[in-house]
């Protein structure tokens, strides 16, 4: 099992080198979250799992940025579809960043990106 570092809410996804099925465990930080918020975070983390199942890696900055952009985009799409009048600071912020457009959103992701993440994911 390998710690998933990009999003702190969903704590574990699996190395593609493992023979076991990928699993995810929910952080206690979301124990009181609404179903809509959970759905948005599930979309985010599910994207990361699918990214690994598709054989894509996290070995370069571009791979991490592209994976994170895809995960945030899916999180925003689900959130925008289900939120109605609900307010959630994090999901609303993600949706706003994604609405900036691909170039602006990816630039912000790159500036948030930590070299530490790439180092930890080397060899997946």
């Amino acid at each position, binding site marked *: 099992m390998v710690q998933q570092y990009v999003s702190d809410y969903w704590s574990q996804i699996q190395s593609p080198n493992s023979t076991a099925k990928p699993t995810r465990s929910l952080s206690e930080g979301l124990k009181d979250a609404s179903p809509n918020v959970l759905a948005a975070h599930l979309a985010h983390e599910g994207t990361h799992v699918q990214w690994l199942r598709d054989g894509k890696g996290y070995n370069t*900055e571009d791979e991490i940025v592209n994976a994170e952009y895809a995960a945030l985009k899916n999180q925003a799409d689900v959130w925008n579809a289900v939120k109605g009048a609900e307010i959630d600071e994090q999901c609303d*912020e993600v949706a*706003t960043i994604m609405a900036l457009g691909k170039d602006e959103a990816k630039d912000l992701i790159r500036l948030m990106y930590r070299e530490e993440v790439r180092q930890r994911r080397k060899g997946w």
Partner: protein
Amino acid sequence: MRALNEYRRFESTNPKLNFSFLYPTDWQVKEIEERTYSEAFVRGPRNQADTFNTGITVTAMPTRETGGEFATVEEALADYMTRSQRLASWRELSRTSGLFLSSPAIEVTISYTLRLPLNSPVAQATSIVERKLIVKHGSHIYKITYRAVEEDYYVFLPVFRDLVRTFEFRDGRTEVQEFYPLITPLPAHAVHEQGAEYKAHESE
């Protein structure tokens, strides 16, 4: 300006990145190629909270007549302002229009708040200041964007000014650029200025 030996020149073999500029030797540059834009991404130092890097990007997008989204710098600016206004605590700090390397240009500075790290239960509200120069040159619209957390913005603003002052399009024309520093040092006091901060003169 820093000493010249503290800078290196960005030049690319990618014809879509048909420009050059000076950036600090201890900053990292990366070329990015996407379907709808090309970009030189320059990463500067990390902030004290270890959540955000200072950065400068130069993004090249085709104009509408060559398959892109926008025909003018005004259209590109309007789209950017509309989209960015949804960010928390968004404010427009300054706006300047004029010429940059003999081409029509608009520069705007905004600030907003992000909760960093993104999607984290321990996220902290972080004020970001973003300054963007949009210029139309030939068949492309270029965005030169400087972003930093508020406490780092003025620390590295001279790097952005040096990058802009040394920016050149590599399309055969030789131009000598004059750079006019900010009329007011604090963007909060420079709302809707109409002066031209950057001007250029073609030389022989």
